């Protein structure tokens, strides 16, 4: 079936809505990778099996949706029953029968499966009442978790391709750009460059052809916003790209996805097929004379290929190394032609901006950072997962209200934002507003939206060492300051963590960092020393403690700690003896255990296993 006019699209939309409304009750099963890993597929199969044999009024297997990620991966597998929004967590196969009989058939809530608020201890029934969701505003993630991830009809039913139809049939390319400029949308991949301005500078270039690329090479450890959008709502990415292509005059587009995201590739591919079949992609889109094709280009997963010029080289089939961008990639990008490159999340915002207008979008967030931003909230926080909040929300609101505070109520130490090249912000920065400019000013950055919460048992030297090791491995090795500089900076961080460094070494690290920032070719190198620079800025004393006192008070740096058993607290349970890989702990049942320090490798296995906190770090 080909849709050849906006009227026909609206007709189809009504049909899709009617078809979905046939069932007042719906079951949404999260099939994001997190829930799949904890057994969601088995739940889906069980529902299908049971629904075949049971007859329920106004309900059938068609009312069951396999959705994208709900974001609350920690509580998975998740099952939501609409329209009440009853929210079940950690669902097991044996619970399926009960859910069908009680909740679906009789609107009865199963207390046992409800989410328990870790703060108050109360059970919460509805999706929208859970603090994790209540404080969120979802634009880019608006459909993720709500619709069947691979069904174009459902996307259309929620207003999908409305923005595209409006752009293609009622607006001129320059009007589209005008609306995006008005919206104030800034690149969500980390750079924060105004999207409208980027499009405008490409649209005016006479050289042809123009290309549009979507950057789905999300490489930050712990970040998964883009993956979730590509998997759970692939059509919004396509729609955003079609609008961009129309605005800048491109007929060919690429989505660059890393090989580690197989589900994203499958779902995007399905979405491209569906859209092409409907005539919303390909030649003569929606009956207009606008043609646009999208191809998927798979990357090998190198971090540096998220950098625009390296990405374009990789798409072209060359080695993914960046080039100096004194001539910008908008002018000379893919195959040396004018190219617009935007991140997945940026594209996901575009359909809504066109549909509802730039002014509507600009009202959300702060004056210089409009709209919302998706974050992957991870680390030592109670509710980890994927969130989307208006720009300008404070770190405290994100960590304590949405995230529910720190696990085990341990003291907050720092939050790492912006991925490996971002920085760590200490407790006195918790009230900072999360937006592009504020975070950069504080020595960190927005980045693509990773947010790692750390408690007092996290050592900042160790954190810096970890991220420097990552960046050192991921440096493409083209330019000297990044390749050799990050290697040496990491080596020096190791020296500090092992208590072998002097204060001169710290000074050398600072001087080296300054020159890596100054001399590197691309953004990876220029921001490479950030893990060190931001931690030494806010936690200098901790570095000095490692250097002067040869001590790691967080109890992390192995070379500087020893484990001891507290005689008062040890009840002789034998647990630590069982897990010690070096047979360094001796003792008998119900007798005091002791650690032989000469055999101990300080791996921390005993520390983790002891229920009575009897293992002490000195």
């Amino acid at each position, binding site marked *: 079936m080909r849709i050849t006019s906006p009227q026909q699209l609206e007709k189809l939309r009504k049909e899709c809505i009617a078809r979905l409304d046939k069932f007042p009750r719906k079951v949404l099963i999260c099939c994001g990778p997190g829930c799949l890993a904890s057994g969601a597929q088995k739940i889906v199969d069980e529902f299908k099996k049971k629904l075949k044999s049971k007859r329920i009024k106004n309900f059938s297997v068609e009312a069951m949706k396999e959705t994208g990620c709900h974001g609350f991966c920690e509580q998975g597998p998740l099952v939501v029953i609409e329209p009440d929004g009853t929210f079940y967590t950690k669902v097991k196969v044996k619970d399926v029968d009960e859910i069908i009989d009680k909740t679906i058939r009789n609107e009865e809530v199963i207390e046992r499966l409800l989410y328990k608020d870790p703060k108050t201890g109360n059970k919460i029934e509805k999706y929208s009442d859970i603090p994790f969701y209540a404080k969120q505003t979802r634009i880019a993630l608006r459909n993720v978790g709500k619709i069947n991830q691979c069904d174009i009809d459902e996307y259309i039913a929620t207003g999908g391709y409305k923005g595209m139809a409006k752009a293609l049939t009622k607006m001129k390319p320059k009007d589209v750009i005008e609306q995006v400029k008005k919206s104030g949308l800034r690149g969500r991949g980390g750079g924060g460059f105004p999207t409208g301005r980027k499009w405008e500078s490409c649209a005016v270039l006479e050289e042809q052809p123009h290309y549009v690329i979507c950057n789905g090479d999300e490489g930050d450890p712990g970040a998964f916003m883009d993956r979730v959008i590509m998997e759970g709502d692939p059509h919004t990415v396509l729609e955003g790209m079609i609008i961009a292509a129309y605005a800048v005059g491109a007929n060919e587009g690429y989505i660059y996805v890393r090989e580690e995201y197989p589900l994203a590739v499958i779902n995007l591919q399905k979405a491209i097929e569906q859209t092409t079949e409907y005539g919303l992609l390909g030649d003569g889109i929606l009956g207009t004379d606008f043609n646009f094709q999208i191809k998927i280009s798979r990357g090998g997963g190198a971090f540096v290929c998220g950098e625009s010029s390296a990405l374009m080289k990789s798409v072209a089939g060359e080695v993914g190394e960046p080039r100096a961008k*004194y001539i910008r990639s908008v002018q000379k990008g893919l195959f040396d032609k004018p190219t617009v490159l935007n991140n997945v999340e940026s594209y996901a915002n575009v359909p809504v901006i066109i549909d509802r207008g730039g002014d509507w979008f600009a009202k959300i967030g702060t004056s210089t950072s409009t709209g919302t931003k998706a974050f992957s909230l991870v680390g030592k926080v109670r509710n980890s997962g994927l969130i989307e909040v208006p720009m300008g929300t404070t770190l405290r609101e994100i960590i304590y209200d949405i995230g529910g505070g720190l696990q085990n109520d341990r003291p907050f130490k720092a939050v790492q934002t912006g991925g490996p090249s971002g920085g760590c912000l200490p407790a006195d920065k918790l009230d900072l507003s999360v937006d592009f400019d504020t975070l950069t000013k504080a020595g960190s950055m927005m980045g693509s939206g990773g947010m790692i919460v750390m408690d007092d048992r996290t050592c900042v030297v160790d954190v810096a060492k970890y991220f420097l090791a990552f960046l050192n491995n*991921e440096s493409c090795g083209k330019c000297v300051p990044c390749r050799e500089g990050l290697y040496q900076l990491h080596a020096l961080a190791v020296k500090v963590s092992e208590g072998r460094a002097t204060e001169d070494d710290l000074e050398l690290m600072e001087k080296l960092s300054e020159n890596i920032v*100054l*001399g590197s070719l691309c953004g990876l190198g220029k921001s490479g020393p950030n893990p060190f620079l931001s931690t030494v800025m806010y936690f200098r004393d901790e570095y000095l403690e490692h250097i002067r006192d040869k001590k790691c008070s967080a109890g992390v740096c192995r070379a500087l700690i020893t484990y001891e058993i507290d005689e008062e607290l040890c009840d002789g349970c034998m647990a630590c003896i069982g897990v010690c890989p070096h047979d360094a702990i001796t003792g008998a049942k119900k007798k005091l255990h002791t650690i032989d320090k000469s055999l101990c490798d300080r791996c921390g296995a005993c520390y983790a296993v002891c229920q009575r906190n009897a293992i002490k770090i000195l």
Partner: protein
Amino acid sequence: MTINGKICKAEEGEMLLAVIRRQGIDIPALCDHGAVEPFGACRLCMVEITKESWDGWKKHVTSCLYPVEEGLIVQTHTDKVIELRKTVLDLQLARCPGSPEIQQLAAEYGITQTSFEETIDSDNCILCGLCTRICEEMGFAAISTIGRGHLKEVGPPLKEPPPDCVGCLACAQNCPTHVIPYEDEGIYRTIWDKKFERIQCSKCGKLGITKDFAEALIKMRGLGEDYFDICDECRRKETALTMGRISQWEREVVE
């Protein structure tokens, strides 16, 4: 534009480095080579640039890659630039402690001992990529860089004798630190573990380029099949004799 306070002219499309060098100013550049496009990897040619309209804002760019602009104010030896070059050379010296070229260049900037951890068993390759870029420019692309970061290295595919190598030695002879080994023994040449036979001049017997290189050049340049059978020297002698014979014949005709 001005360079170190001196007004100078440049052609549109020229890169800063060329203009700077034309002024007789010496700045190091290890990955720059006339045969290939500028690369911007060694970072030694970095300079500070600004413009009057930039309101005091300055930036640091690699001069090999920065196209000239009217009104540009360039400084090639500010404290910051020198500090950067020193750091880069310091890092290179740690990577290639045994390279006389790097030692000498570092010494010119006052560094005789690296501040960093020296690489043990270093191959002294500075990874400027000249060898791979020149090989590609020659039309062979037989070698490339392998891997990433500090462990990156130059080599043939799968580290096996490269099928596309013709033994032309362009890589080895353009290496700024002379670290690509090759061996000429009798009529044989070995490079990248691949053995080649060299052409012997049919007149004087002198050894010339490899047979593989000759075949490739004949194909690429449309030369005669027997073009490389004699060496350049003998060819010149032959040409002279032929020319002499023609002159003599002309004289005879006139007489």
